[in-house]
């Protein structure tokens, strides 16, 4: 197995941790606003799971970077161009249907990826994946059920779920757009090449979306720039503004 470069390993860890951090923040925006109490608590649980995973990924990223930072420093003291999350997770929540569709698409990808990371050659990655994969197995089960319930529901819920899928579909391709970092990590056995996850992902979402009577758009156009950091959407800056405000205004504040 090839030895893995620290910078590349850190890049991978930021990709993992930034996905869960930004999606966790997005999902937490529903707290107190969900359509029903039960969904409110379920979404808050999901957000907290993602946040817990974030602290593990970013904590390890900080360790690998070797700059003496903590997971909190990495989360709260970087600006938008340093984030490596997928564009999908920074998109605004939209209506509840769009939030659940985004959740399902990410959960599907996340569960396939974590499944492979259980075999990582890196022990810490393996341990984080073991904890996270149990949480995510539940996330995907729940979001899939909701997508089916709403997709195969009333005329209005169906239309909203189809609109959500149409809107989000161009952000799916980025999950599998691998680069040199991914190939290096794959060669070292640390993480799979995301391009190789597409078949499992397609099989999973194909089954659920068919049951939800939803039509997968006939296009493979993909917005990119999140996981490479080349260009995020305008939404990320607004998230960071809210998320990092306190640390920026009162540096090192803690409670």
């Amino acid at each position, binding site marked *: 197995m090839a030895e893995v470069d620290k910078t590349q390993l850190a890049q991978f860890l930021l990709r993992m941790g930034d996905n869960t951090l930004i999606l966790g923040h997005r999902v937490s925006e529903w707290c107190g606003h969900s359509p*029903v*109490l039960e969904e409110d*608590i379920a979404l808050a649980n999901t957000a907290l799971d993602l946040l817990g995973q974030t602290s593990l990924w970013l904590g390890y990223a900080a360790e690998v970077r070797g700059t003496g930072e903590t997971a909190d420093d990495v989360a709260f003291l970087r600006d938008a161009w340093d984030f490596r999350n997928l564009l999908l997770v920074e998109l605004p929540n939209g209506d509840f249907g769009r939030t659940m569709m985004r959740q399902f698409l990410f959960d599907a990808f996340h569960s396939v990826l974590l499944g492979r990371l259980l075999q990582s050659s890196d022990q810490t990655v393996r341990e984080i994946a073991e904890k996270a994969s149990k949480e995510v197995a539940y996330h995907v089960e729940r979001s899939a*059920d909701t997508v089916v*319930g709403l997709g195969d529901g009333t005329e209005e819920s169906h239309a909203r779920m189809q609109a959500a899928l149409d809107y989000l579909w161009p952000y799916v391709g980025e999950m599998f757009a691998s680069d040199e970092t991914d190939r290096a990590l794959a060669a070292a056995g640390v993480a799979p090449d995301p391009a190789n996850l597409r078949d499992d992902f397609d099989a999973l979402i194909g089954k659920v979306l068919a049951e939800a009577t939803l039509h997968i758009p006939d296009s493979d156009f993909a917005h990119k720039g999140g996981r490479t950091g080349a260009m995020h959407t305008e939404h990320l800056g607004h998230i960071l503004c809210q998320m990092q405000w306190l640390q920026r205004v009162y540096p090192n504040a803690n409670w």
Partner: protein
Amino acid sequence: MKHEWPLWEIFIRGQHGMSHRHVGSLHAPDAEMAVKNARDVYTRRNEGVSIWVVEARHITATVPGEKGPMFEPSESKVYRHPTFFDIPDEVGHM
């Protein structure tokens, strides 16, 4: 058209060997989602190892107004309590 999800009564078993106990109720569109909602609402602090859900309309309950004839007759029957027996120490907690 009815917009409200049905009500479900939730029973959680705290640990193996114990019985399921009623912990509360919630709304859900079907039984599977009721189990999921129960997991999210009632077991977030590691409260359980098993969940039962029953749609509330399937529960037949006693009528509060009939409390007298239903329960009062047993109040005066102290001899029904097995308190007149000596329990050997080896039996342990009963």
